[in-house]
């Protein structure tokens, strides 16, 4: 019997070599003069999210009161990461700290864009897609504040959120 993508949401794969592939892709982009590497990684993350939500989603709708749980579940289920989340209601930002980022592990001096740009774009796109046509909350990746790729102890991804109708 052939495997389906549904089956793949129930099993694990090891990222060690795939993580390296992301950075070799970045190097390949660089030597071929690609300047919009960050945008490309974000596009990859959005595309992953668009396929992924067809097979799994954490909840049917997400608002500011359950966004923390939703983000925690996404990181846990998809990336097997336990994250800490801070919500800044004043600046409408969400900050996620991941001490064990699946796409960043080693300090790489020749790399300018952290692999977790992919993750930030994927997470925000999943939330936006879940809330599509519901006018609740949209999320956008804002910045990678820290990354293990740049020698930091953990990866910190920040998002801007927008509450519809507010």
């Amino acid at each position, binding site marked *: 019997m*052939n495997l389906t993508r549904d089956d793949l949401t129930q099993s694990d*794969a*090891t990222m060690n070599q*795939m993580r*390296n592939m*992301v950075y070799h*892709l970045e190097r*390949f982009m660089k030597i071929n003069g*690609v300047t919009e590497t960050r945008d490309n990684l974000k596009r990859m993350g959005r595309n992953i999210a668009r396929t992924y939500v067809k097979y799994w989603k954490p909840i049917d709708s997400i608002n500011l009161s359950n966004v923390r749980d939703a983000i925690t579940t996404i990181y846990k289920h998809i990336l097997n990461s336990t994250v800490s989340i801070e919500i800044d209601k004043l600046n409408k930002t969400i900050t996620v700290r991941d001490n064990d980022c699946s796409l960043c592990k080693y300090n790489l001096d020749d790399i300018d864009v952290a692999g977790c740009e992919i993750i930030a774009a994927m997470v925000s796109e999943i939330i936006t897609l879940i809330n599509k046509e519901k006018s609740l909350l949209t999320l956008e990746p804002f910045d990678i504040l820290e990354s293990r790729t740049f020698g930091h102890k953990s990866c910190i991804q920040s998002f801007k959120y927008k509450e519809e109708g507010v």
Partner: protein
Amino acid sequence: MGAVQWLLKKITKVFGRNTTSLFYVLLYREILKEINNITKDEEDSIVILREIGKKAATESCERHTTVFKWMPGSPRKVIEYFELLWVVVFGKELEEGDLTYEELPKEGSKYNDYLVTIKSCPLCAGYGVDDEDTFNFKKISNQDTEGLACGLTGMLESVANFILKIKRSDYRINIVEQKCLAKGEEHLQFMCKIYDSLEWKELSSVRIQDKIKSGVKFEESIEEDVVQETKLDIIDKLQEVLSLDKIEELLDEPLEGIKSKVAEIIEDKLNMEPEHFFDYFRNYEDDLLRIIGYLAVHLLNEYGGLIEKTLKNTTFAKIAGYLFKQLREFVLLFIPIDVINDYHQLLISFLDG
């Protein structure tokens, strides 16, 4: 599958960083698409993804050299451990009966070719169903071009050859994806060919830049011919006698086999019948057990100085001493004396022949 292979697969998974297989597969797909955005040529993209896979795997192997030192050094054995290679690379175990081998005789060659078939490929699972699966295999006209698993194939080849390199083997393995589900074929199939160093050098002399038509730049990886001679560490010394295949044989061997080997050694080295040898120890079985214990410690010291080196550290020595003392004092709390006596008798009757 042997017990040690099973254990090593579990260890590999424990040390790996896991995500869901679907995230892995979709990220892999996106990498291929991004490469294709640069090359604008599907056949070139496949070649480059394979090379990126090779580089990624080599980098990973170089960071975890010790794990691979336990693998067997014969190319045939490495192919027989293909399932383990798959777990090292992909981290996902294959279903029972998913993998089959076929040995293809090769005239005039030391090693045959191998055809490895995997019924259900996770990378191809559901490929083409979703709108984002935009890499189009129909645009590939060259029948020899690999399929979606080309990157994975590159990784597998690199891991296999990394093992052979650190085991100082003169042979290398070329793994090529021959059939791909995403290309409409019935299963995933790899052709594994074993080459000697001269043939391998010739095969690897073709530059990637010469294989691709689109003119994109690719930084070629240079394979070192010789493993740098470095000081042998404990693992190096141990793995000479305890590589994975040898441990596997030892564990799979029935007690009778081990007994006959012991008998052979006694006959060969001491020129005595085993029963005569053990007669010397009649009524001194406890002493014999102690001797076996000393011999075990001596052997561990011979092959890498494991115990001596560990106990040189005062903290480890204290911990070992404490554990030994506690074990002696508390063993009877956890294991009944009858069970200990049973094992004692079993060992003595085994030694008695």
